């Protein structure tokens, strides 16, 4: 049933579209267009996730080109690398469950200042300017700080997964 196809894959595809860089509304449109394209295929009910992600990447490329976004956004090679990271790092256990579990544990281990910054950006959705004011940083300083926190989290996840045998 096509409904089963959609319900099986829509959450992962939406997450994937956001990962590629699409805003929420765009991600919703991309997921819809992906499934409509998949419905026209010969055996849509047995569509595999990698194939659907491939369709979504093409949809994203076309969307970027229509809006004449910066060339790096519409670079097929970059999207191909993005897919490799998604497949090899996030989906190493088949569905990303291990990665998410490790990320949750790493979040719990973060120092207070990091957790505060993460809360301001992701939970309270404060602007960079507001975060800068609250943390006594410059706006550029906030951008670098958040990147360092994410890098530390990624490293922590990598270590946890390695310790568990990967």
């Amino acid at each position, binding site marked *: 049933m096509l*409904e089963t196809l959609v319900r099986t894959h*829509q959450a992962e595809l939406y997450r994937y579209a956001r990962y590629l860089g699409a805003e929420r509304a765009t991600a919703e449109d991309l997921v819809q267009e992906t499934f409509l394209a998949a419905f026209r295929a010969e055996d849509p009910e*047995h569509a595999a996730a990698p194939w659907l992600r491939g369709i979504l990447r093409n949809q994203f490329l076309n969307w970027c080109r229509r809006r004449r976004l910066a060339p790096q956004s519409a670079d097929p090679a970059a999207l191909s690398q993005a897919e490799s990271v998604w497949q090899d790092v996030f989906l190493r256990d*088949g569905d990303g469950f291990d990665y998410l579990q490790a990320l949750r544990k790493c979040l719990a281990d973060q120092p207070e200042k990091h957790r505060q910054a*993460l809360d301001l950006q992701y939970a309270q959705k404060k602007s960079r300017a507001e975060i800068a004011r609250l943390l006594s940083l410059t706006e550029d300083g906030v951008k670098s700080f958040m990147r360092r926190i994410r*890098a530390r989290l990624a490293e922590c996840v990598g270590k946890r997964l390695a310790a568990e045998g990967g």
Partner: protein
Amino acid sequence: MDEHLDNLVDTLLREEIGGEAAPDLAPAILARADRVRLRWTRVLITAAAAAIVVAVAIWQFAPGLRPGSKPTERGVTPQAVQPAPVVPEGGHEVWQRGSVVVAQGAPVSLQLGGYCSLELAANSQLRIEGEDRAEAIFLEQGEVRCRVERSVGTFQVRTEVGTVNVTGTEFVVAVLGKETDMLGKRLFVKVLTGAVLVSGLWGNVHLAAGQQATLPEGGKIAGILTGKAETWIAVKADGATEARRFTPMWKDGGLDKEMLATFKTLRVQNRVELEWKMIERPRVLWVRMIVPEQENGVVVGVVTAKEANWIEVKPDGGVPERYVPRWIRNPSGEGGSMDQDMLRKFAELKIGDTVRIEWNYLERKRAISLEKIAAVQ
């Protein structure tokens, strides 16, 4: 940090901390799909109507163009082409025991013993067996419709899956499934008049007129978990070359939550055993991952399948298992990667090579050392 890795963590943090959840787009998507289908249906109906109008016009006003009409001076009228009838072995209808009857593009009718009338469907094949007054066929593939007169003799339709026994009835038998289908072949029997007894691994099932059954309707299998997602697992059963997907049973208005939670605990590339039942699609009743009793060991076997990150090895007389490389930490202690040396060895192997692997188990069987003993011939 790699840009893509940063995007990955950023995306997941929006969900974990920000509570961003994927919206349910199914109603909108299905509604749009219906509109597209409706649009195409209208296009097809319009095209069909136009074709009918043209055909009627030709029939009325251009009789020379009607199919089957004699050639005109302007050219040859195309003739309708019937599928070529299948010529039985020897060119004439003599059914010897052991004869194989193949129906390719068209059905084949045959009579056995003077009391069994069969129609073998197109793309089907059977072998004549049995003896006088105890006629029998072996349906190798496809479908056959049978009418057996009463009080003359017995008749059997034998298949790989089971046997249908009759003493005067009309019924249809079909063998379903492919060689490589891990559900195996199944037997479909539909009784038109009279009654049949269908025998197989499931025991005996009596079917009366108007009844039909597909057997078996489930079973237990063991094999390799080749993939999974939130709502399904894919298992390649021992002996099969393809994996099949299984979904949980439907329970309380949704997929069985306990089974979905069980799916999360399973590790791809491990062996599993499960019991399934066919309800619209294969549904898993229970599943368990088979964890080896020993933490390490040695295996000698033939490479039966491989991809970049794993190889599948079957020891003589044993079951196939998959092996992945170890995860090796960087000397600095930060991060790591798969054993690159082992990945290179995997890449060099061919299906059919004989290998010796020393392994340990850490969520999956991991190749510690690999030696090619013999190359495929």
